[in-house]
């Protein structure tokens, strides 16, 4: 089991208390799951947090069921599940679950030296998986990976991957077989612990199915924790090492979340605390006890009622979380895309609170979003990758850029910036924090007038600022020592593609022999080339040109915007030729514009393999 877990580089499950686990804390900690909190930063009990999708729920420990236990259950379960799964090919998720579960089980079986059933499972899986459409594709790939994963330690990742799939699919599957599972679990329980068996003892098949389901779930829970670990790491912060889950898992192994069976009140308590209340599945397969398993369909009403209470949650992210829960979005790609889109909206609407710095606050916010989404549904690997991407490529990149750029600011400098670029703003604020004495000239232009926002923030921090409009740059450029610009993208021929007007600023700076530094994260580099601003651009709303905000006397063009002979053009972007740019500051360092294609080619590949 350890070997199985070793390859996992997931963050500490402690941190991630998301998950379907409700029981584990009860069982292991013998206390109510008090970790149904939103953040994974609370280190919970040995319960595995990372697995479940829910953000704050106390994660039941992603435990590997005790070998004896699992193996004891395994054979009958496996057989049962094998029979159980093939027939149910209808729901996509189900097949996924099946596949995943089977695979998970197979992994466990392998480690528990039960290779016999493995092939069977895999076969079952494959047959089941083939019928699955989109999400099934992922499953198939997982299936393909599975055998490899089984055999080696390194396959742990694959196992986890599959398990993640299985978790996802499992959660969907749970919806369909909740009742059965419950019955099965009860039966299983009765059989196992001679504790109160609530339902009647269902036939072996049922119990087998239930067991297998639970096993599946536990199995899938285990891997997802690792995945969650990834995402949680990314989101929560890069603090948790990946190896801790292993110990945690081991520890969590013992306290199995059986709380729901033993003590309904505990479940209720746990549920009350969770942001996303998940009803723990009744029948948990022993093998999968470490995975969170919740009953589906119980969270939506509660979440919806809490829509307005969750202030820190951006509505777009909340919406996506709800969609996860209800199963509207399923499939790795769809979920990932939805999540990224929600993040994009959230980031767009995001504005740094006055007292905090952009990087830290944004990290925390995105972390909280991710935890919420995990609460709703475990993250897929793709989402984990995406989140890690966001963190590494954007937030960390910004930090590196700031670190480089402040070395270029010295006392007595007069820095000019155009519009409002987040990277440049961070650079200026950081340099100010370091105590450098400099002045800033903020150049602004119509129609967006973004410079005013930046101006307000800089003056609020106590930086000496001068504000002017773009026509006056020839006048002000005499006093300027450096120009800092942001970029929307840097193209392969060194052309900087950014807000319209940047080219004018760079050109005038060049003619006055003022160095121009562009701050741009490396993920914005693109292999496209562009010579001028006409080939590819974006057009904004032309009506904003006819009206000048705050100057009602300028109304010559009222009503003319729809005339054929008189047109209004509102360009959004323009292309600055590379000879105007002295240096580009990226997270790979400070490079000349000619190095951009090198970075695109050499370093982009590496990124894809992360």
């Amino acid at each position, binding site marked *: 089991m350890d070997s199985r877990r070793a390859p996992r580089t997931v963050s500490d499950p402690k941190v991630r208390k998301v998950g379907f686990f409700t029981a584990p804390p009860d069982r292991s900690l013998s206390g109510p799951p008090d970790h149904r909190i939103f953040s994974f930063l609370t280190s919970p009990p040995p319960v595995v947090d990372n697995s479940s999708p829910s953000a704050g729920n106390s994660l039941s420990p992603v435990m590997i069921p005790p070998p004896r236990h699992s193996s004891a259950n395994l054979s009958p379960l496996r057989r049962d599940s094998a029979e159980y799964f093939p027939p149910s090919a209808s729901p996509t998720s189900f097949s996924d679950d099946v596949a995943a579960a089977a695979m998970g089980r197979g992994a466990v079986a392998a480690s528990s030296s039960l290779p016999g059933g493995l092939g069977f499972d895999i076969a079952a899986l494959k047959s089941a998986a083939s019928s699955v459409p989109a999400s099934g594709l992922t499953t198939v790939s997982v299936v393909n990976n599975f055998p490899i994963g089984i055999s080696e330690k390194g396959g742990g990742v694959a196992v986890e991957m599959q398990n993640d799939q299985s978790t996802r699919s499992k959660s969907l599957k749970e919806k369909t077989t909740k009742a059965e599972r419950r019955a099965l679990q009860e039966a299983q329980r009765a059989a196992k612990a001679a504790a109160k068996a609530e339902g009647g003892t269902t036939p072996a098949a049922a119990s087998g199915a239930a067991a297998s389901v639970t096993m599946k779930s536990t199995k899938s829970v285990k891997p997802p924790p690792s995945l969650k670990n990834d995402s949680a790491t990314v989101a929560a912060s890069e603090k948790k090492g990946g190896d801790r889950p292993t110990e945690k898992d081991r520890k969590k192994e013992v306290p199995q979340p059986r709380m729901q069976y033993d003590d309904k009140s505990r479940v209720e308590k746990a549920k009350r605390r969770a942001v996303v209340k998940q009803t723990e599945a009744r029948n948990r397969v022993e093998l999968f006890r470490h995975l969170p398993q919740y009953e589906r369909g119980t969270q939506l009403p509660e979440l919806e009622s809490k829509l307005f209470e969750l202030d820190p949650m951006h509505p777009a992210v909340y919406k996506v979380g709800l969609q996860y829960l209800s199963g509207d979005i399923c499939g790795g790609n769809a979920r990932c895309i939805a999540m990224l889109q929600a993040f994009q909206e959230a980031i767009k609407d995001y504005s740094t609170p006055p007292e905090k710095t952009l990087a830290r606050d944004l990290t925390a916010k995105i972390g909280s979003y991710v935890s919420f989404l995990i609460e709703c549904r475990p993250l897929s690997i793709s989402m984990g990758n995406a989140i890690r991407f966001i963190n590494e490529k954007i937030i960390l990149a910004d930090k590196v850029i700031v670190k480089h750029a402040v070395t270029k600011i010295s006392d007595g400098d007069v820095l000019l910036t155009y519009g409002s670029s987040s990277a440049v703003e961070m650079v200026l604020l950081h340099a100010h924090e370091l105590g450098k004495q400099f002045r800033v000239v903020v150049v602004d232009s*119509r*129609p967006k007038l973004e410079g005013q926002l930046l101006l307000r923030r800089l003056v609020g921090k106590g930086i000496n600022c*001068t504000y002017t409009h773009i026509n006056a740059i020839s*006048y002000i450029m005499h006093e300027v020592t450096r120009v800092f610009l942001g970029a929307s993208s840097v193209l392969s021929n060194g052309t900087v593609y950014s807000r*319209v007007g940047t080219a004018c600023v760079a050109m005038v700076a060049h003619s006055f022999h003022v160095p121009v530094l562009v701050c741009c994260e490396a993920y914005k580099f693109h292999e496209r080339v562009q010579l001028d601003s*006409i080939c590819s651009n974006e057009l904004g709303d032309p009506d904003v040109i006819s009206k000048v905000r705050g*100057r009602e006397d300028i109304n010559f063009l009222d009503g*003319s915007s729809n005339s054929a002979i*008189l047109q209004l053009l509102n360009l959004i972007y323009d292309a600055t030729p590379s000879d105007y740019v002295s240096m580009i500051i990226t997270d790979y360092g400070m490079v000349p514009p000619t190095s951009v294609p090198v970075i695109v080619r050499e370093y982009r590949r590496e990124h894809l393999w992360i």
Partner: protein
Amino acid sequence: MPGTHTLVNELVTKLKKRLVQRGWRVHRETALLTAELLRSVISQLKVPATNQAETLIDAVKSVGKLLVAANPVGPPSRSPSLHAILDRTPDSERAHHSSRAGDSFEGKGKSADRNAESWKLKHDVIRAVNELIEDINSCHEQIAEQSVELIHQNESLLTFGRSRTVREFLCAAKEKRRSFRVFVAEGAPKYQGHALAKDLGARGIQTTVITDSAVFAMISRVNMVVVGVHAVMANGGVIGPVGLNMVALAARKHAVPFVVVAGPHKLCPLYPQNPHVLLNEMRCPSELLQDGEFSDCMGVCNGSGNPLLNVVNPAFDYVPPELVSLFITDIGGYNPSFVHRLISDHYSADDLDLQKRTTS
């Protein structure tokens, strides 16, 4: 000259209050008003028997000093016209003086002749002023006639801000049935480009309004840049609306001809020394920042009591002569390096500095 005092004060007040700023004819109107004022001054001047020319010159110079003092920082828009007029008249006066020098000695004895001579001098001077006024009035037509040589079929032009000369220039080409389209940069902070675009659209010229920041983006697709300016300096550089230097640099980068159309009243004999500061004017910062929104920032001061927020809003921009491709004047097209010849045609070297009282 009580009557003339009133007139002079009137014009001085107008200049001080920038009342002559609105409308198309900023420069022309100033020039015309100044010319007409001088004409009335001269006509009402009682010229003594001797030193008539000098009296006239002194009177004109004093008026000129008053006018320039009314608008000292804006010589670009004012003094060229003033100078043109003032110096043209002294020129003609001197010519008369030299020619009359001999005659006056002869006519000393005849008072009647003297009166007639003085009257003739004044008449000549007034005639010269009238010619000047006529030149100013008709320069647009003469400049516009040259447009057909420069604008051909399917061309794209870029212009900046608003200038009546440019408008006439383009409309004349349109009347000759040349097909072209015009990009008008709006010209913050006055946004006069909007008015020009509207006028051009009304005349049937295909017009597109762009923001000033998009000039670099659009100029790659433009065949020619045509602008009107405030003043043409002695070295061939121009003083124009703020932002013109940016347009000129972009045009130079893309090898687009930068054509300046200017009437004779725009010529200024001064050489621009540090033009950004000396030949410039600062406008109200509220045109850029709405005070209400930024009131919290306005009062913020750093430790030593200096305000943290400064707003810079210059009115004029200087374009060096190497960025200008061509000057179109009423007497033809010229290189920037030729401008000094044009100026010497209009101006006399003695009259460059109104402040200096030449004790001649």
